[in-house]
């Protein structure tokens, strides 16, 4: 059975801090790893990682995949209160129809 594990489950930081969120996976026939941000409603897509060692960056957020270690990290620098959300990691595997989600990291950024 495919498994995606995220850590930590929750994190409280102050504005300006840098955070690193972790995601590890055990899946059959890995295709790609995705990160989503979820505030109150729909998860919004952040990154899709397919190749090892290539960093994807969007503003203060960046992410990298390590296929050898079966893991990925999501970094957020200079955090802001608007970064408070649940960050979800998901892995696309098999026939690319299956997206398995981790349980998420609840990030709270205090002013």
């Amino acid at each position: 059975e495919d498994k995606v594990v995220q850590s930590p489950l929750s994190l409280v930081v102050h504005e300006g801090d840098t955070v690193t969120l972790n995601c590890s996976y055990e899946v059959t026939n890995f295709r790609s790893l995705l990160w989503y941000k979820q505030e109150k409603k729909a998860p919004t897509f952040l990154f899709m990682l397919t190749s090892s060692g290539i960093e994807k960056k969007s503003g203060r957020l960046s992410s990298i995949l390590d296929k050898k270690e079966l893991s990925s990290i999501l970094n957020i620098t200079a955090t802001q209160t608007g970064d408070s959300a649940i960050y979800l990691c998901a892995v696309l595997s098999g026939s690319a129809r299956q997206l398995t989600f981790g349980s998420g990291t609840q990030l709270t950024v205090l002013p």
Partner: protein
Amino acid sequence: SQTIHQWPATLVQPVGSPLSLECTVEGTSNPNLYWYRQAAGRGLQLLFYSVGIGQISSEVPQNLSASRPQDRQFILSSKKLLLSDSGFYLCAWSVPPASPLHFGNGTRLTVT
């Protein structure tokens, strides 16, 4: 551009009543469509996915069913709701073979 509509946004239903949640996608053809459930604001559990009209795959045995009567329409149903059906239901779409999933705004279902 593509958009996804999901309704209703919230729903309170008594135990034993039927359920119908609807999702439609605009701006794309032959998408993969998905229903997920999220309990307690955490990880998403895949309930059903569909790669075409009338083609439904169920991921977990449950009290729910799904149908895809048209290319861009996906419906989640139940004949008789249970308390355990309460949760946040999300519809999503993707472009085959392996694009990211894009989610609707979800339906918060409370079964009383």
